[in-house]
């Protein structure tokens, strides 16, 4: 599967007069992993939240061409009163997954994510931070997203789970999904990224494909040289 899963054009947002995102333009291709890099407060999470509809945009366009969207926030928060299994049931209902397939699908993904299925009988906020993150992955992956957006994908995960997450992103991209990850862990994303978007001071300053030629030996050098260079925008 090829083509674009998301097109963002002229996206802007300000908070109390301070521009958080300025005229951002980018698109995400199916079958590719896009790393979204930027310093703290660069506007990564604000951009993601506007794309997902959690924040209103001041101007610009978001053209979502994906059938199903998955989302894992940096620090997932859940209703204090809900059990894991109940939340998953809601998710599957929302996406019209037949009852007969639900149990099997949950079991398969629990195994892939190394998440103890017994946890699903407990309230989600009682899970450890790492398991809450894994549960958030599970919630999205159950509905086979063709656009998968992850904010800080490796936060709270142990090294084994980080490796499993990297493998998972590759599998998703091979299956035709567009994977979009905002992260500070450049060393991890270096191993799997196809495209990179760098944001600075709310403006997208660089969009590049891995195969594009350039003088940078690795992603970290590319990132550092981009954010240290004089501000110019794209």
């Amino acid at each position, binding site marked *: 599967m090829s083509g674009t899963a998301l097109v963002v054009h002229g996206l802007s947002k300000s908070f109390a007069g301070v521009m958080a995102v300025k005229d951002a333009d980018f698109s995400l291709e199916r079958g590719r992993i896009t790393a979204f890099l930027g310093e703290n407060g660069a506007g990564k999470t604000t951009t993601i939240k506007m794309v997902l509809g959690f924040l209103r945009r001041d101007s610009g366009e978001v053209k979502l061409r994906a059938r199903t969207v998955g989302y894992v926030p940096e620090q997932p928060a859940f*209703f204090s009163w809900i059990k894991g299994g109940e939340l998953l049931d809601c998710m599957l209902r929302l996406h019209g997954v037949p009852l007969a397939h639900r149990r099997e699908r949950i079991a398969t993904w629990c195994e892939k994510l190394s998440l103890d299925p017994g946890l699903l009988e407990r309230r989600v906020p009682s899970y450890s931070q790492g398991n809450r993150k894994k549960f958030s992955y599970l919630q999205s992956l159950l509905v086979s997203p063709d656009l998968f957006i992850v904010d800080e994908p490796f936060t709270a995960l142990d090294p084994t789970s980080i490796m499993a997450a990297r493998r998972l992103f590759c599998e998703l991209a091979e299956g035709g999904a567009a994977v979009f990850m905002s992260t500070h862990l450049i060393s991890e994303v270096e191993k799997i990224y196809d495209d990179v978007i760098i944001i600075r001071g709310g403006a997208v300053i660089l969009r590049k494909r891995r195969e594009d030629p350039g003088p940078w030996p690795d992603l970290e050098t590319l990132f550092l040289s981009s954010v240290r260079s004089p501000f110019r925008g794209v």
Partner: protein
Amino acid sequence: MPDRPRRQVTFRLTLLRLRRSPAAWAAAAAFPGFILFLWIKESYGTALRSFLFLLPHTFLFLSQDMVGDEVREGRLENVLFLENGFKCYLFGKNAVLVLTGAVYGLGLFIPLWVIGLVTHRSGWGDLPGLITALLAGVYYVMLGGLLSHYLKGGSNVLVLIVAQAAVFIGLLFSATQKGGFLDLFTSGHFPDFAAKLEFLAFAAVIPNVIVAGRLQSYALWIAGLSALVLFIQWMKIRRLELKRP
């Protein structure tokens, strides 16, 4: 996303929330207990009148924790609520809570009323009281929902109860004056526009008063207020953003 699955999820989540709320269970159990106590200690008539007068407050207890906490703590930044799904969920909660309150109220009223019918102590004349009690309950859900945009879960209910207590104390003071508000209130006749306005403001804080037979004509006022508060809620939810402080 089709609307029907979204409605189903809103319904399911809201009911789960109520099922897991100790405050909701306590209120749901205490209310019939109190009515039964009045029936035994006083009379069937007192129990039925008290039931109708207090029924709206059960709706108020349902409306705690409707919006504020869920937004502030980031619980709605979930894949379940993408594409404005969180707005449908927050607005749809009103309907689920009204429905739950109505089912609960009717579930208690019907046996109470049927027993009265069989023993000739109640009649069709009690039904307008039920309808106005349900209407006042609807108003409480709308108001509780609106207040929860500004206040923490539980505080939205508490602030209304404190306001009611203050108004009630004011009413007691007016009892010492001949021709004071309490006199007008018990007669159900308000001689001038100012007195009528005073009553409308009173009913906006304690809508339960419209259950009384002589004041049922003011049900339209409460219905109008409910529609207004729902409209304000809708406007607020439409512009709502999921920002964590």
